């Protein structure tokens, strides 16, 4: 096995062990119904986390994704319910707006040389504020197209359902993995995260790639917003508050290094599933309060970071030393 795949393998093994232990305690957790709901319930988080993986591999961070999900939901709800647009048109508009938004952030990060943390923080305030200026209330979306999409699913034996949004998330993950590992853009992203100076010396179009990375992240967040609006049939300006932190946690648990240059899109998938498992377990248990979710996720995060440190220290002696000036 390739050394570089070890953190990914560690995450996958831990997921399998955790899942097996949950199943031993609650045999019902193995049903296709639970597995199907796993995908449906975490679809918006998963799609967001794919974009976040690219941003983090490039050495950046995107705090605006939760706000973009909220803004997209409100925008679509207003376009469909108040202005009578067809949902598909509204989707295209939302993705376009998010693309411009992400491009503007990428542009600022590259040309003004401001840390991504601050730029995307401003983006977060802007998107969240913009959404609450449009409306303060939850706007319901009623359209037959939404019902059609909601009914679209593959029925599995034992009553499980693979919903449209669950399948969409899997498609985004597969597309993301191809984009990261099989395209020129993907290798540019890794190069940028490894070392921006040598990347630009090697001829990586740094400006273009940076803008594209943040466009990708914002557009995937908008897609997640579309999924979220399908999931809840409404647009609400305060929707998905804090999702950026869940997405970052999923990416880190999935084995991607926050220093950039190293990570896997499919690892993020395992990370999202692990977060979903924690939530499902706590629901199954019934006696644990919901705040245990947060504590467990915090502990998981800590364990994975330490694990990564140990694996890196053991597998690449001297090369990726923990020196971070």
């Amino acid at each position, binding site marked *: 096995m390739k050394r570089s795949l070890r953190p990914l393998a560690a995450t996958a093994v831990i997921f399998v062990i955790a899942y097996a232990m949950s199943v031993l305690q609650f045999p019902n957790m193995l049903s296709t119904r639970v597995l199907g709901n796993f995908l449906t319930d975490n679809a918006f988080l998963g799609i967001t986390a794919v974009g976040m993986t690219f941003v983090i591999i490039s050495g950046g961070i995107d705090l605006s994704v939760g706000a973009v999900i909220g803004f997209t939901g409100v925008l679509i709800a207003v376009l469909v319910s108040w202005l009578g647009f067809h949902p598909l048109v509204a989707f295209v508009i939302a993705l376009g707006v998010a693309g411009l938004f992400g491009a503007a952030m990428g542009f600022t990060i590259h040309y003004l040389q401001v840390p991504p943390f*601050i730029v995307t923080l401003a983006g977060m305030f802007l998107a969240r504020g913009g959404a609450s200026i449009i409306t303060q209330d939850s706007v319901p979306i009623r359209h037959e197209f939404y019902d059609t999409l909601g009914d679209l699913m593959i029925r599995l034996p034992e009553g499980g359902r693979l919903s449209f949004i669950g399948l969409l998330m899997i498609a985004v993950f597969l597309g993301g993995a191809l984009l990261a590992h099989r395209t020129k853009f993907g290798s540019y992203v890794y190069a940028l995260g490894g070392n921006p100076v040598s990347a630009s010396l090697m001829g990586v179009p740094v400006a273009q790639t940076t803008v594209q990375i943040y466009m990708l992240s914002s557009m995937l967040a908008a897609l997640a917003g579309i999924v979220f609006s399908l999931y809840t049939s409404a647009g609400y300006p305060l929707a998905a508050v804090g999702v950026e932190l869940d997405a970052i946690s999923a990416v880190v648990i999935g084995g991607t290094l926050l220093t950039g240059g190293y990570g896997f899109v499919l690892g993020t998938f395992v990370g999202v599933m692990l977060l979903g498992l924690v939530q499902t377990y706590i629901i199954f248990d019934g006696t644990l309060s919901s705040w245990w979710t947060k504590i467990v996720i915090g502990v998981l995060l800590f364990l994975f970071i330490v694990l990564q440190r140990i694996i890196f220290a053991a597998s690449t002696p001297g090369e990726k030393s923990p020196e971070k000036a």
Partner: protein
Amino acid sequence: MKRLRLERLANPQLIALVSVLLLNWLLFPNFFNVTWQDGRFFGSFIDVLNRGAPVAILAVGMTGVIATKGVDLSVGAIMAVCGAVAATMVVSGYPAPLAVAAALSVGLLCGLWNGFLVAVLDIQPIVATLVLMVAGRGIAQLITEGSIVTFNDPALIFIGTGSFLGFPMAAVIAVVLMAAVTLLVRRTAIGLFVQAIGVNRAAASLAGIRSRMLLMLVYSLSGFCAAIAGVVVAADIRGADANNSGLWLELDAILAVVIGGTSLLGGKFSIPMAVVGALIIQAMNTGILVSGFPPEFNLVVKAGMIILILLIQSPYAALPFQRRAPLPSKAVSK
């Protein structure tokens, strides 16, 4: 280090604060009206000082962390934990000073934990403090058992709502803390060491600076400041709300520090200016409220403010004013 007093006053942060305050005054002519009632001052301007205090207190600790090229995302969650500790202890009959001391020690411990992750385990500050940010609110809810713990202890409430020489207690605490920490870092070599770590930790270590201990120190200080802010906020509302106490205040604190001219790339910091940054943010919030704009504009105005500051601080903004300016390189060191 002797400079003209006037020159010192003419820095961008103070100019920004004065212009925001003037703008408030134009929109709401009674802004500077201060009345004396029940042995203390009242008025919109005093309100800015009072409401801005928690973020100002956080900003004092955050400045040190950011100066070492780090960031502390957990301060909001630490506020919730410490508020919860103080409130539950007072409710179960412990005297207020003991409860406050316990809360402050818990904050110090949280800070030490962050410092341990960053300095000893060498984890990037964003992830290291993310752990406590995610878990902290859960821990706070564990302490309060999911409810909002309310209390009536007069001594504890005084910290949040009392007054000293007519000024709100929260603001007094913030000013004293700012002065103490500023003296500590500027009158000793600590400030210089912290700056050295921010510029290049490896080089600082080679030069003989005990970077691990100093990193533990700055993160502990940040946790300690968060604990003070948590107690102040809990005392202000006479209750500990694990869900909402300090929610997103870490972002406001980081913003205040950045507005104050501290570079996120480390190496340059000013604690008093970070406090001024917190006041600018609060003056905008209060201004929007008193001038009758809907509070939803708050976030958009804040975003506009950040963008403006970024433009001013960007190396390109200085180009038209410089002759033969060196091309800004990717690795901005200043």
